[in-house]
């Protein structure tokens, strides 16, 4: 057997000498000390928090969440660990499922539409079902509830990460694929050498965006109602929940502040270094002018700790390669699944599965639901739809001009782009109490004034996409417009709007999907004993959830999925296609 193959991620920029250089005795530098302290501290903290997750369920009652600000760091830690556990699960899911979908035509036919639909399903509605399921898996342990919470975050990240990775794999240049075939790389080796590096930059970016979305759910999923009992996991979300129940304004402020700090910290300590590292996998043959920077990454590189940090990846790669068959096959294997008989059998199997699913759903629905229920759900969905449409329109009127203004000024764009991303990452539900206080004080109609909460967290997608679009308008076009004194409405009509259109649509699509999802927490809010409800599908699902009415939760979730899908298919996609066709600048 040959010695283990070298793995590209194991080593740094200069693979040959890196390992020996690592072992060479050098005088410890200041960076060495900093890195050592950071890594050591992280592991201590990690083990402390991990102990809490395997404790028996009764500890949740023995040590309930308190409003003591000194407990907040620990709560934040538990929340962050949930986030990263979910991110890890999403990444594994992505690598397996998306690769399967891209490699096997047959698997792709099932996986791709499934991912597309799952992206539109309001995850919060499912919490009720998953908690019960996971608590059954780990009876009597906190782990079950933890898993349910993690699963809720996972579902908010996994689908679009998988989708993005799938799309990366589909866009691998054919010459590289041919090279892997000519040089007979086994599927595992091909995955490690080609698929994984090629998809990494997009995957990292998408994970970052999904992480932002995940915050929203972590806050909502830490305090869960299971039937008649309420389970509360230690975390920022449950702290906030308690603060709201006690109408403790200071505690809410503490939570919001902690949340801000945590978001900045994981961005700086985790995502920035990864983005800087992943830059090497960008598929381009010219050295890029601007490389992403990260001080943490620089420290890791300077201290030669990078190989140590990356070595687990290398080990996993070598483990995978151990399963590699002895020698690659000479010629490409014919696609056996392309035979007509196979095709036919496949169609029959899928057809039967669809039929069975239809019958089961119909039987369940007929037992628990009436046509009247469906009608009510659709009516409520229409209320929410009107809210979403009006809010997207309002947010566009505000943010498009501002975004264009910023985008055309590179100095401002550079400073404000990260801010917009931070705002998008910030879980808006943390801010709900402030709005509720205002509503209660001035006695405002919830049906109207609760609506803005839906778009509070998602409007930023419009802003930073418009900024990106405006800064991508070619200078020569802007100069030409200046030259001919194009200004006012004509300038908007002929320069700015066509320039940002595809970007704006992407932003509006994301914002609209997010708003539907957010309606579940935004249409029903509480502040102590005050309970404000706006009529809509979100509050319908939220009320059914707290009543433990599974049938109506399922109905609501189903109707919302249909609405979101319909929105995407009938409104956003045609608009996007139109923009691609008519307004592409290049």
């Amino acid at each position: 057997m040959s010695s283990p193959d070298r793995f590209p991620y194991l080593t740094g920029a200069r693979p040959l000498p890196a390992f020996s250089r690592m072992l060479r005795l050098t005088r410890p530098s200041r960076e060495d000390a900093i890195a050592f302290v950071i890594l050591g501290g992280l592991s201590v903290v990690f083990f402390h928090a991990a102990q809490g997750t395997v404790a028996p369920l009764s500890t949740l009652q023995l040590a309930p969440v308190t409003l003591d600000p000194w407990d907040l760091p620990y709560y934040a830690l538990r929340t962050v660990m949930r986030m990263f556990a979910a991110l890890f699960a999403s990444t594994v899911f992505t690598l397996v499922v998306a690769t399967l979908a891209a490699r096997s035509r047959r698997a792709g036919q099932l996986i791709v539409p499934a991912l597309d639909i799952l992206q539109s399903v309001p995850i919060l509605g499912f919490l009720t079902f998953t908690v019960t399921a996971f608590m059954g898996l780990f009876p009597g342990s906190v782990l079950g509830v933890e898993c349910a919470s993690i699963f809720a975050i996972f579902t908010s990240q996994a689908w679009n990460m998988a989708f993005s990775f799938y799309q990366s794999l589909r866009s691998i240049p054919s010459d590289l694929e041919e090279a892997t075939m000519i040089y007979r790389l086994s599927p595992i080796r091909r995955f490690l050498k080609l698929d994984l590096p090629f998809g990494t930059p997009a995957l990292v970016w998408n994970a970052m965006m999904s992480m932002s979305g995940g915050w929203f759910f972590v806050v909502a999923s830490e305090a869960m109602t299971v039937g008649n009992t309420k389970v509360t996991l230690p975390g920022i979300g449950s702290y906030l929940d308690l603060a709201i129940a006690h109408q403790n304004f200071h505690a809410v402020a503490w939570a919001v502040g902690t949340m801000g700090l945590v978001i900045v910290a994981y961005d700086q300590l985790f995502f920035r270094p990864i983005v800087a590292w992943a830059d090497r996998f960008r598929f381009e043959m010219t050295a890029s002018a601007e490389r992403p920077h990260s001080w943490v990454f620089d420290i890791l590189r300077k201290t030669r700790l990078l190989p140590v940090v990356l070595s687990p990846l290398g080990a996993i790669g070598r483990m995978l390669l151990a399963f590699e068959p002895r020698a690659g096959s000479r010629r490409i294997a014919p696609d056996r699944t392309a035979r007509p008989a196979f095709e036919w059998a496949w169609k029959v199997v899928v057809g039967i599965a669809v039929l069975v699913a239809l019958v089961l759903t119909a039987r369940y629905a007929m037992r628990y639901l009436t046509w009247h229920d469906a009608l009510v759900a659709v009516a409520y969905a229409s209320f929410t739809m009107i809210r979403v449409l009006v809010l997207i329109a309002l947010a566009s009127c505000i943010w498009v001009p501002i975004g264009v203004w910023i985008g055309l000024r590179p100095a401002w764009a550079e400073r404000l782009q990260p801010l917009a991303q931070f705002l998008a990452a910030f879980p808006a539900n943390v801010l709900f109490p402030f709005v509720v206080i205002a509503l209660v004080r001035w006695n405002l109609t919830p049906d109207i004034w609760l609506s803005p909460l839906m778009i509070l967290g998602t409007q930023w997608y419009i802003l930073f996409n418009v900024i990106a679009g405006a800064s991508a308008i070619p200078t020569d076009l802007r100069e030409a417009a200046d030259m001919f004194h194009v200004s006012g409405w004509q300038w908007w009509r002929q320069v700015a709007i066509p320039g940002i259109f595809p970007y704006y649509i992407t932003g509006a699509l994301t914002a609209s999907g997010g708003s539907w999802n957010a309606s579940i927490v935004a249409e029903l809010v509480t502040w102590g004993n005050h309970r404000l409800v706006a009529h809509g599908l979100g509050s319908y699902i939220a009320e059914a959830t707290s009543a433990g009415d599974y049938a109506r939760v399922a109905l609501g979730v189903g109707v919302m999925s249909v609405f979101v899908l319909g929105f995407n298919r009938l409104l956003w996609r045609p608009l996007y296609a139109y923009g691609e066709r008519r307004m592409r600048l290049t």
Partner: protein
Amino acid sequence: MATAATAAKPLLVEVKGLRHFYSGQDHLVLDDVNLELTHGEIVGLLGRSGSGKSTLLRSIAGLIRPSEGISRLVPAPDVPDPSVAMVFQTFALFPWLTVLENVELGLEAQKVPTALARKRALAAIDLIGLDGFENAYPKELSGGMRQRVGLARALVVDPSLLLMDEPFSALDVLTAETLRTDLLDLWAEGKVPIKSILIVTHNIEEAVLMCDRILVFSSNPGRVSSEIKVDLPQPRDRLEPAFRALVDDIYARMTARTEITAPMRDGQTQATSIAMVLPRVSTNTLAGLIEEVDGTPFDGRASMSELADSLQLEADELFPMAELLQLLRFAELRGAELVLTPAARNYAQGDVDQRKALFAQALMAHVPLVQHIRRVLDERASHEAPARRFRDELEDYMSEDYAEETLRNVTLWGRYAEIFSYDEEADRFSLEDEHS
């Protein structure tokens, strides 16, 4: 076909009765191709883009399965287990791997022990002249150096057959020349254990410079139209009369066959049908070419190879233009010489409106698809017709993409000649804007 001298050498590649259709469609890419490669020869596949030569290369490489026929590597006593390696037009290097790692790729996949793989890779890098760049990433290298990496990666696995897919066409002229010479030197000095090289190119001079044998492909469908043995001694000199004569001869062979008369199923010939294969050339290019040939020094007649030199065009780019000129009866081909007709000389002298009128006349007279669209528009009371309808008609004869491209091309010509107008948003043809 094979002479006594080559017949004595053992066979390396055997291709018999190869036919290939584009997946699922009835578009024939390769038709009845037979090819034999023996040890010790460099063979060139020369043809237009779309003549299926890359497809042939890929079926020999085992990357695609031909729809019919066989293509196999033939074992010989000294090569019991023949293997292939390939050099790509686009280099196909992995940007996240260093030069060394890229070269080691094939060795690692073959499970060559790490130390040995390292040794062999370094030797290949040394051989190809990339010493000192082992740890560089591809993006740090120039195009020529990148292709050297591609070459080292191919040589290091000791292939019996080296396949090259337009290996020098992405490089500038000087770099390409150096690489060609270096490769020929390695080959002549026997420093590489390669038994044979198969090179795809559309550069006629490159083929004559490198190959012992050249197979000229015709397009639609791809067939071997002629085989040329090159007996000139190496190293060859481009300026030598025998070299020039051979180049001109190949130009003549490649332009000779322009009338495509494959019988259609309803007995029509393609020449009178809307399914006629139309060269994709823009009206501006056409005007430029006519002006060039009309002006000094050509004065209405130019040899194809001189024209290619003077316009700095690859033969591959020039052929479709010449073909369109012939189709519109703006030029005739006499041997390898392009001769403008009186109509074309009038065109060269005319102003914008006269040019448009001449072009419109030629289109209406010689391009059945344009006639067809115009007739339909004339017959309809609304003088409008959806483009979809014509695309569907074309799809009876050709693949979907090809039909789309053909119609797009004809739309451009028709709009320029003001034979009809077209609304992209509605995807409709009409006559309304004719007054302009």
